[in-house]
């Protein structure tokens, strides 16, 4: 058995499908007409039933269509149509692994053996119809013993059509030949011969018909007789997890944008879950509309749109869309687009899920998803980088160099090191970043008193000093060369303060830190 699914007025439905995903509402009752063609001569290309009832018809110019204010006019979007087609293929793949994308808005699937899972044909088609409706599509569904009979029945009959084996010719006899995918010349020729329906074509004697129209004629006649036998051409391209949305009016606030992104993420993750996949990488691309006042100020022609791109990376793949939504929220709060958003494009890069079994006696470690959100929130509080470009939130790493305060901050991904050595307590240094300039009085090269630039009126006696300990580096490049003479000193203040000071190559003194 083969099942065909057809979404009539697909171009209009694709737009509505996108809006339905974005708003979570059923908006099929909304009259919509799709315009296509050169900008100077836009014409109505497709429309839904509600628009048709308003009086609008295909081929009308934009000005004629604008005479119907209740009808929403939208420009044709190949991206939305591709997204809609992909959604339909995904829907069909839930029921069969053999799915053919017969034409835009039409899918044929091989349903052999599906009765074991879904029961008799009427239950199967009802389930498919419910799934398509959930996606935001109103579809015609037909089930037949061969793919062409099912396909043309779905094209020609409204709602659900169940054709029992052997009754194909009877069912499709009343369909018009215009449904067949044949050249207009052939169709005109047939109609001039008084052949208008499948029944008329099926009734013709085969031999003379084939003599006139060749093998194509035989194929068409077999279709009309409901006896066509062919193999499906299954969808082979690897699935792409991309969602797009075009806003009717550009939006500037973050909240409505997140509302739409939430719907897009839900849809993406539904597709991922159907394939038992997750994602650890998400790319967001927003098309922004530049404000006109900026063009005027610069007094030159600027492109009126620009792209704004952000990426979210996770250490492990996840199937939880809420985590990524929260991360997007935090990221866009820190890096707002700054302009009005015209359209959004979201792509998830799929990867296999990783399952780990935790030991009973292992200590709790932060869950990767929770940890990512926590880190993003912390970055929102304390900032992302310091003046040297090092992260403000993360895991410290000591660099293999003798230069002072040499460290990096890497992304925090806790790993238990079972072999960390037991070390004797050593007194710690508290580093001043940046080092504090100081004035040091020396006698025979040894520091005797110190004054701080922050308190120029006070000078403190140095009661003990140990040093100097010279370090240097960057010898190969003059610009990177450094050297310093370090001293450990005890300063008499209210209590004894232990400081590490140093003199650089330019003979300037700095306080590096305090022992504590």
């Amino acid at each position: 058995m083969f099942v065909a699914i057809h979404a009539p007025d697909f171009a209009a439905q694709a737009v509505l499908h996108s809006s339905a995903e974005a708003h979570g509402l059923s908006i099929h009752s909304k009259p919509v007409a799709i315009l296509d063609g050169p900008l100077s001569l836009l014409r109505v290309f497709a429309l839904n039933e509600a628009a048709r009832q308003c009086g609008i018809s295909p081929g009308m110019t934009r000005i004629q269509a604008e005479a119907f204010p209740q009808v929403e006019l939208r420009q044709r979007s190949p991206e939305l149509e591709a997204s809609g087609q992909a959604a339909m293929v995904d829907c069909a793949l839930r029921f069969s692994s053999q799915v053919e994308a017969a034409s835009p808005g039409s899918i044929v699937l091989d349903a052999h053996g599906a009765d074991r899972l879904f029961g008799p044909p009427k239950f199967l088609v009802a389930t498919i119809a419910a799934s398509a409706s959930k996606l935001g599509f109103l579809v015609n569904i037909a089930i037949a013993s061969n793919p062409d009979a099912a396909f043309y029945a779905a094209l020609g009959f409204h709602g659900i059509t169940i054709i029992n084996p052997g009754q194909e010719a009877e069912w499709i006899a009343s369909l018009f030949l215009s449904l067949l995918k044949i050249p207009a010349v052939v169709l005109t020729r047939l109609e001039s011969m008084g052949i208008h329906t499948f029944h008329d074509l099926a009734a013709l004697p085969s031999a003379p018909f084939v003599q006139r129209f060749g093998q194509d004629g035989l194929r068409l006649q077999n279709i009309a007789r409901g006896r066509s036998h062919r193999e499906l051409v299954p969808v082979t391209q690897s699935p792409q997890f991309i969602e797009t949305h075009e806003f009717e009016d550009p939006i500037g606030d973050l909240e409505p944008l997140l509302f739409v992104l939430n719907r897009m993420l839900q849809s993406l993750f539904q597709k991922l879950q159907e394939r038992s996949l997750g994602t650890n990488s998400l790319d967001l691309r927003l098309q922004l509309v530049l404000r006109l006042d900026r063009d005027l100020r610069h007094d030159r022609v600027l492109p009126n749109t620009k792209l704004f791109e952000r990426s979210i990376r996770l250490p492990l793949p996840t199937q939880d869309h809420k985590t990524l939504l929260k991360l997007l929220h935090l990221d866009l709060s820190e890096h707002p687009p700054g302009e009005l958003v015209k359209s959004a494009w979201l792509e998830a890069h799929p990867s296999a899920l990783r399952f780990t079994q935790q030991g009973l006696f292992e200590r709790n470690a932060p869950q990767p998803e929770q940890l990512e959100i926590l880190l993003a929130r912390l970055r929102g509080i304390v900032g992302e980088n310091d003046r040297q470009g090092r992260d403000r939130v993360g895991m410290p790493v000591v660099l293999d160099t003798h230069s002072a305060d040499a460290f990096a901050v890497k992304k925090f991904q806790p790993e238990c090191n079972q072999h960390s050595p037991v070390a004797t307590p050593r007194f710690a240094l508290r580093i001043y970043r940046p080092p504090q300039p100081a004035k040091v009085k020396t006698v025979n090269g040894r520091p005797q008193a110190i004054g701080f630039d922050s308190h120029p009126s006070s000078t403190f006696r140095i009661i003990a000093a140990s040093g100097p300990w010279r370090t240097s580096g960057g010898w190969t490049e003059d610009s990177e060369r450094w050297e310093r003479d370090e001293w450990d000193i005890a300063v008499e203040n209210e209590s004894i303060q232990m400081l590490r000071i140093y003199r650089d190559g330019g003979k300037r003194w700095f306080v590096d830190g305090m022992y504590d």
Partner: protein
Amino acid sequence: MPSTAFVRDEINKKIPGALGFYERRSRETLATGITALDSEIAGIPRHALSQICGPSSSGRTTLLISLLAQATRNGECCALVDAMDRFDPGSAKASGVDLAQLLWVRCGGQSRSALKIKNVKRELIPVEQAFAAADLIMQSGCFGLLAVDLADVPSGLVAKVPLSTWFRFSRAVENKPMVLVFLLPEIAAGSYAGLVLRLAPSSPVWRGRQDLPHSFLLRQLDLEAVVVRTGDRKPPQPVQPRFTAKSRWGL
């Protein structure tokens, strides 16, 4: 006339737990790694707010790093909220801290959230950031040790932290198996702290002759902690464990 049981049931319905008993948790601790201190206070308590106070060079950071080394050696994830960006990863690594398990939050940066903090003096912003970051980390509940380093914040600013903030932190940590430690210049949280350690000014120990260059070395710091308050009791005669911390030359 309603019975006592009826009245009790009615109250329990309206105010759950009002007539119940508050069970104090059994005391769980994390060893500091300093024998003299652990033998006296048995470590820093979990489920409680602890404070390590003292003047400059009194060994507060040394004690904290020793604690971090113990926690990471146990396989626990630790977080350090560094209000003034004073932490030295090199010192920590030399003292045995597994840096791979340490989340370091360096306050004082510019962010959009920080810009939203209005009517706050500029010098208070790192303190505000430190408390906000600590709050988030504590709520996540996935760290075994959370240390908030306010040691170099002026005492006057720490005194401005309202008692309600300390109260909130002490209540929030009660239900989490976490060690929450604040490094402060002065005691601040009052009775909300489960443990207060005040470190006395240190005594440096030098070796060698001052007149001979490179032979006069700072060997160690002799440190002394005063246990001002523990979760169990307020000692009438504070105990004063003494310990030493070696310098880079003293090993």
